């Protein structure tokens, strides 16, 4: 990626042609050059820096309604974590790539970091905090403990919510199918084998035994 500039002793450490041109100008004039421009071009809103008016929202989470005044930019994940202090759903990337933020919306698994809270109004949101019934763990939660399907535990709530949905969708028929249908959830500690085993256990528990 590095290539020497035409000016000999200076190295250019990226291939950005605009910067290269500017650097040459800077060297010739001996002055500073303009860098660090995160937002090239004029933007009216950038100049005012004003926040939009907060929205008056009702979010229904684990069967309970919560009234919140939220910046429209607030993701569902941040609404849960920063405003409702339901920190069970995790932020592992903020861009929909790791799955640690997985919640159920109207029964379907979604990535809450890619959902705006404002657009989640009127939907039924289920998070990890609502899965257990009091002290009674959901079979998949118990299976995760039994199968040691986690180490650091940070991906675990997202894995479990995705796993619950995966089973309900009928996509947990084999290890291969589970791996494919759980591929939206990363585990940096590498507990995948045990996660697959836990999901299989939970499937078996849910299936009635044939033949008495």
């Amino acid at each position: 990626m590095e290539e020497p500039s035409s000016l000999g002793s200076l190295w250019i450490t990226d291939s950005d042609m605009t910067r290269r041109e500017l650097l040459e100008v800077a060297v010739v004039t001996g002055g500073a050059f303009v860098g660090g421009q995160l937002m090239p071009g004029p933007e009216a809103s950038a100049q005012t820096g004003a926040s939009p008016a907060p929205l008056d929202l009702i979010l229904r989470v684990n069967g309970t309604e919560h009234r919140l005044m939220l910046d429209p930019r607030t993701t569902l994940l941040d609404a849960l974590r920063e405003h409702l202090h339901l920190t069970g759903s995790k932020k592992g990337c903020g861009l929909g790539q790791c799955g640690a933020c997985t919640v159920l919306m109207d029964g379907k698994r979604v990535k809450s970091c890619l959902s705006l809270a404002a657009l989640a109004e009127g939907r039924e949101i289920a998070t990890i905090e609502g899965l257990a019934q009091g002290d009674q763990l959901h079979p998949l939660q118990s299976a995760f403990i039994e199968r040691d399907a986690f180490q650091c535990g940070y991906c675990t709530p997202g894995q479990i919510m995705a796993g619950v949905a995966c089973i309900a969708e009928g996509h947990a028929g084999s290890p291969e199918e589970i791996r494919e249908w759980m591929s939206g959830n990363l585990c940096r500690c590498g507990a995948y084998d045990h996660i697959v085993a836990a999901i299989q256990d939970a499937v078996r528990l849910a299936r009635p035994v044939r033949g008495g």
Partner: protein
Amino acid sequence: MHPFAVERPRDLDAALALRAQAGRNDTPTEYIAGGTDMVQLLQEHVRRPERLVSLAGLLDNRIELGPLGLRIGAAATMADVAAHPAVVEQFPVISEALLNSASPQVRNQATMGGNLLQRTRCPYFRDIGYSACNKRVPGSGCSAIGGENRWHAVLGTSDNCIAANPSDLAVALVALDAALEVRSAGGQRSLSLIDFHRLPGDTPHIETVLEAGEVIAAITVPANPAARRSHYLKVRGRASFEFAIVSAAVALDMEGARIRQAYIALGGVGTKPWRVPKVEAALAGASLDPAALRQAAALAAEGAQGRGHNNFKIELMQRAIVRAVENAGARA
């Protein structure tokens, strides 16, 4: 994210009117449906609308099969379409393309219309730390040309932009001659999907022919006996949850062991989904003999231009065509 207001209009006409006030792409007012691409772009400051108009609940989400073919409401989710029995049985390439896309969670949220409008994954486009990106900042240059371009297009490029279109669904639909119903405050129009995405040329920042205020309302796929015998092949480094390096959508109308008519489109290699009519013509009347397939597939490379790190795609896409045709041909 830059500050924005959210509008949740009660009906489509109100939504269309709001959007129509603005200009073309990346204007202060944008639609949001599933949001799975839009929210990423907002988080990374690539898109900076002042107002988002939610399309939730305003568009058709039905999936219907009729004598003329398939009609899919633009609000139908990727997951619902992928699992629909009519799609699975009669248009498997669409189902396969969808199931090979993204992750189960994203497929539950993302809409068919939004999928067709998703922006390129070019890392220079998606990282505002790079000031040279003609698609993001017209006239600023292209960091990928002369930079890291393994992911980029070899077909349909210009000296201004070599970003690949990332949609698997679009490739499958283009192969099947899909069309779009587009609505605006002023009315409705239809257009072929193959005409929907634009080549970058001198204006890479204008990616589709959608006018200001227009919204995709539905996707139609004409009935086609070949669609039953179709397949989507996606070549990528990971087994799942990754965009295509190269992909091929194939549908075959066969008579015995011979191909009567082939329908083929490529993904991962074009600045837009890439139909290959010369390959199709060469396959008319051909058998599934590998040598014949290889010879026909070579025609796809016409006009292909590697940019340094993606030269391998030119050979790989030919092999992908051959493999996809073989797979489709093997379907009962």
